[in-house]
């Protein structure tokens, strides 16, 4: 079943075209990665899905529903959550309050407590720091909090923007393991934007390569890892 579909999406910042006729299709349960250089339009793609910017042309479908012009809160309520680039923790809110914000739209207030406990077993570090302000956490802890904040919304589709950015390699491994686990255990569909193409393609099922706002290649992750062009440009081999 189709989870997310971008159809000829064109997004502008002022007069500058950031995305040029982008087509992406994600099925339920998949991990899809979008790789590309700085400024290729990866974050814009995610923001176009979330309704922070609205595409000028083309359509975004979520479970066959046209969400192109929906407001962000409506899109979150349908089941799309984003872990944005740079983590964007609310710095003066405590860890718990950050999670509260993640669960802002949840109606089943009773189950939230259980979900928080689950998060705290997944990330014991966050449990230790639950009353600490978000801004005082280390980069890796902030990334874990950002992922947790998105998860407590119980999304069907999780968007991750450069979760490896600025983190130590060992933490990056942990984060990617967790992403794969979220997909495996909860069946959450994952749309992963990464510059670290090597790591991303290892956990992804399929991948898209974005260059200057245009999708250049799309293939299975395995083929992309073997693709000569991709290896040269993005894998540094």
């Amino acid at each position: 079943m189709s989870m997310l579909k971008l159809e000829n999406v064109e997004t502008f910042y002022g007069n500058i075209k950031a995305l040029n006729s982008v087509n992406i299709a994600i099925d339920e349960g998949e991990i899809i990665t979008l790789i590309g250089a700085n400024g290729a339009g990866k974050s814009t793609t995610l923001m176009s899905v979330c309704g922070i910017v609205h595409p000028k042309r083309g359509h975004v479908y979520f479970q066959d529903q046209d969400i192109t012009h929906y407001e962000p809160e409506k899109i979150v309520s349908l089941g799309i959550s984003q872990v944005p680039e740079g983590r964007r923790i609310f710095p003066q809110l405590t860890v718990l309050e950050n999670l509260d914000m993640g669960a802002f739209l949840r109606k089943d207030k009773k189950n939230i407590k259980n979900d928080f406990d689950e998060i705290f077993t997944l990330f014991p570090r966050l449990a230790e720091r639950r009353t600490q302000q978000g801004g005082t956490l280390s980069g890796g802890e902030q990334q874990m909090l950002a992922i947790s904040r998105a998860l407590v919304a119980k999304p069907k589709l999780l968007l991750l923007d450069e979760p490896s950015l600025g983190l130590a390699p060992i933490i990056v491994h942990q984060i990617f393991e967790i992403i794969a686990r979220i997909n495996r255990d909860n069946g959450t569909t994952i749309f992963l934007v990464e510059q670290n193409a090597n790591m991303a393609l290892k956990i992804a099922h399929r991948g898209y390569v974005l260059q200057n706002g245009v999708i250049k290649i799309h293939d299975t992750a395995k083929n992309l890892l073997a693709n000569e062009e991709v290896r040269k440009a993005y894998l540094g081999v």
Partner: protein
Amino acid sequence: MDYFLKLLLSGTAKGSIYALIALGYTMVYGIIKLINFAHGEIYMIGAFVALLVGGTLQSAGVNPAVILVVSTLAAVFFAAAYGLTMEKIAYKPLRTAPRLSVLISAIGMSMFLQNLVLLSQTEKYLSFPSFLPEFLFLKPIRGYINSTQFIILIITSIVMVLLTLLIKFTLIGKAMRATSQDREMAQLVGININSVITVTFIIGSATAAIGGILICSYMGQINYYIGFIAGIKAFVAAVLGGIGSIPGAVLGSFVLGWTESLGTGYISSDYEDSFAFIILILILTVKPSGILGRKENQKV
């Protein structure tokens, strides 16, 4: 020492009223980064509504306690409605406009509301009857603090405690803080920015109206122009404390109240209104971010 204590207490009473107005400034600034120059007018309108409702009830011979409650509720309700409407008409259409455009819109709104009251009411100073009761137990210390000042202190303390609880512990309070820290991220977790802004304006306007009633009972008179000077002073208090910071607004208000009171007591009462501006100039040159304000740089 006696004289000093007296001045300090009257400064505290004044400062707590400034705080009620400054809170609205600082909360709105925190959320939409706008200095809402029409905020003083909301306070003035709140006081006028209280005067109209209270005066009518008084001439009908209603019990003073009932007058106080009913006129306060009416003032809070009208002020909140004005604040809400103002936001929808003057600021919401400019949500993505440059900040200067919104600021000009705010100044325009301020002039419009002043003139609205001028035309619909009067340009004269009206006497504002004190609806506040006299407390007999304050008689022995009357030289230091009178009943009106006492009530001002009690009511502002209650309002501030309630506001702190709301902002600290309720979901909407957390959403307000989240929105002021990172608006786009707040949208990404599903917070409706427009509702948060609406709630902020309602709360700010309601506390301003309470401040309006209290200060008019204290001063005993009212005029369409009182919002301007009170608004400017509360603005100074908010900047002094660090605009966007709620404890900062309260602290700044007390510092301003004490400065004014001690300044008029020891220097000259002719300069009463200029102390605020002296403070404003000092704070802007020495520490523009205010006492408790944060510099606007973010950790990436």
